[in-house]
């Protein structure tokens, strides 16, 4: 971990560890001289599709890019609405706006379960609704089975924002494999991380074809195809983008994917240790249930302070007295300046309460028990 300053953070809220085999894979790729999307990306896509259980996986530059392509694949355009959670990162809503459509925010179930509320989703469906985006908060599966039925009955698309996956399960299927498309993130703090990167998983051939084409400018063939003499020229069909991943990142992701189950197992173990000790404390509650941990991806550890508006004080105490970094997952999207200006008057009481009580405490797969004990002792101290 890069030391940010001499003293802070002693315990970061996330930490990314790069192993020797990751380094070797990147070095080998760089030495090959082929950096743009090619055989390594194709191999990683195949391995990722196998892992999450989708027919196709299309590697992209970020989860934001994956969401944009997923909405386009669902036919979202000007005049349409997409129902999205506000208790997640703003990209889920922003990508709707990229399509010229309007994000309609749905509330969460409550402090006990931070997933999108299917009943509120149903209330917000109108004639203009083209898709519903469901996030899997902290990697705990949202009720996408219920949402899938609802969407199917209304003839609209379900898009899964699986940025907090992969590795979470609902029943016998991975999160991200229920919707028309599942959108995954490989950002630094994610369970499968590489810096910047994303993936769109889908069972639908047409969605995969569209994503594959539009991630590369709408071109009918890419640089690798021309280098490998598959084609000599190309046409451009549709307004596309540069959402390509490159080979060094694919090579590193391939190695990290092979360790993902092991990393997630350790994350779950750490979460259970947290839950066992922190559940005894007055002044905070823990969202989700102990039995949910085994089917989550273990992305982050959210705690909910009992008293709203105390996050700043609590976090400052952990930072200043204990060198512990925390975060807030998330400020509510509809309360950001950009969204208040564009979509005024949105009221989501449960989201707003969660946004004022949630604190994300440190969690990473190589966290030691000692480090974790320090965090828990510090939290006990902060609550006193």
């Amino acid at each position, binding site marked *: 971990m890069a030391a940010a300053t001499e003293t802070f*953070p002693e315990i970061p809220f996330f930490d990314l560890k790069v192993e020797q085999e990751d380094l070797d894979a990147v070095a080998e790729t760089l030495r090959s*001289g*082929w950096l*743009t999307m090619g055989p390594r990306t194709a191999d990683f896509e195949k391995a990722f599709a196998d892992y999450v259980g989708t027919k196709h996986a299309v590697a992209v530059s970020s989860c934001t890019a994956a969401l944009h392509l997923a909405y386009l694949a669902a036919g979202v355009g000007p005049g349409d609405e997409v129902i999205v959670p506000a208790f997640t990162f703003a990209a889920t809503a922003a990508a709707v706006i990229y399509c010229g459509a309007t994000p309609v925010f749905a509330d969460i179930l409550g402090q006990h379960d931070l997933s999108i509320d299917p009943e509120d989703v149903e209330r917000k469906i109108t004639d203009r609704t083209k898709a519903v985006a469901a996030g899997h908060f902290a990697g705990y599966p949202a009720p996408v089975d219920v949402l899938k039925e609802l969407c199917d009955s209304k003839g609209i698309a379900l898009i899964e924002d699986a940025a907090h996956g992969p590795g979470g399960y609902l029943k016998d299927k991975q999160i991200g494999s229920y919707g028309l498309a599942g959108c995954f993130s490989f950002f630094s703090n994610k369970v499968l991380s590489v*810096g*910047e990167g994303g993936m769109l998983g889908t069972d639908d051939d047409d969605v995969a074809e569209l994503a594959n084409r539009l991630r590369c*400018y709408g071109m009918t063939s890419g640089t690798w195809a021309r280098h490998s003499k598959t084609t000599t020229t190309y046409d451009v069909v549709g307004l*596309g983008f540069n959402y390509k991943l490159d080979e060094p990142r694919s090579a590193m992701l391939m190695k990290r994917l092979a360790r993902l189950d092991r990393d997630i197992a350790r994350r779950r173990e750490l979460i259970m240790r947290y839950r066992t000790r922190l559940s005894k404390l007055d002044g905070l509650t823990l969202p989700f249930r102990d039995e949910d941990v085994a089917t989550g991806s273990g992305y982050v550890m959210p705690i909910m302070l009992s008293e709203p508006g105390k996050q700043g004080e609590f976090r400052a105490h952990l930072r200043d007295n204990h060198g512990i970094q925390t975060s807030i997952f998330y400020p509510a999207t509809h309360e950001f300046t950009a969204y208040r200006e564009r979509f005024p008057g949105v009221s989501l009481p449960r989201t707003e309460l969660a946004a004022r009580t949630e604190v994300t405490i440190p969690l990473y797969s190589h966290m030691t028990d000692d480090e974790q004990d320090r965090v828990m002792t510090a939290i006990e101290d902060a609550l006193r």
Partner: protein
Amino acid sequence: MSWRVPLAHIAIPEEDVQNVLDCLRSGWLTMGPRTGQFEGEFADFVNSPHAVAVSSCTAALHLSCIAAGLGPGDEAIVAGMSFVSTANAVRYTGATPVLCEIGGPQDMNIDVDDVVRRITPKTKAIVAVHFCGYPAKVVELRKICDERGLVLIEDAAQAVGASVAADGTRAGSVGDLACFSLFSKNQLCVGEGGVVTTPSEELATKVRSLRSHAMTSVTWDRHRGYAETYDIMDVGFNYRLDEPRAALALSRLPRLAADIESRRELARTYRRRLAGLDGLELVWSDEDVEHASHFAFPVVLADEPTRDRFRERLSDLGVQTTWYPAVHRFTDYVENFGELSLPNVEAAAQRHCALPMSAHLSQEEIDIVVQSVEEALADLPDAAAA
């Protein structure tokens, strides 16, 4: 399947590999200190006050079009000879790209007179492309933009290190915004990446904000304890570069001037050895070669069927070539903008062929290319008749 001479060699010396590995070992991969340092050194290289690293040149163009104020109902005049992303970026904002003419097959850069003819009350910006690294007439366009209150955007994807005037003024330092590519085949390459440069602090701030979802703080600031949370001020994007790519770019930047000089030397060699061959025309001039930074080396054939046969023959001989189709002829552009007529762009697209160009082509490879070109020309069935 392997080429005797591929279009471009990407040599990643061991020092670059080690710099990337050092970055990876640090565990800090998302935009941080290396990106900041790269931006500073890149700004110095192109002699621009501000540089903002982004995920691609397409992202750079998109953010530049937004920063230029383009939106629905606006028009931007765009060089008709370019990669499709130049015009696409205008469309991302809801504005209309007005494709314009180039000089012709021998000068594939934007035709300033045609730009002036296409200016309407809706015109908000001009996007000039330094095609293949040969400088477009951005000094003239600068005057036109100043007189009419238009924004000048330089698409310098292919032109890092080129000079746009006799005094050595660098490509990318004349426009209100300039966009560079760090894509694999470029002079400064990292895989995927781009940079926006601008003389304006206000535009730099706007671009910097929009590349990371218009968040008021980034992960690195929060990691250092400088910010506890954030607001979102606009609808932004994830157009961030990451630290390993910034480390690679930083490692390569000190060699860039020498690499460009090697490319220039290759262009001089090609011109010397290919001059006077029947059926082949060189483009631009010897003097232009000295100002260009040589992304690619295009030559011109008699017509499209001849060019296609020439490329096919070179391919058979193991020499990879490429060419740029006319943007207005792509299916998506015909569907959205109808059948436009841009005769010079069409002639250039039909007749040019880009030969292998990179900083590290060996003498043997140069010989192969030149001999293959001679052989391909001799094999053209209509060469004698033409």
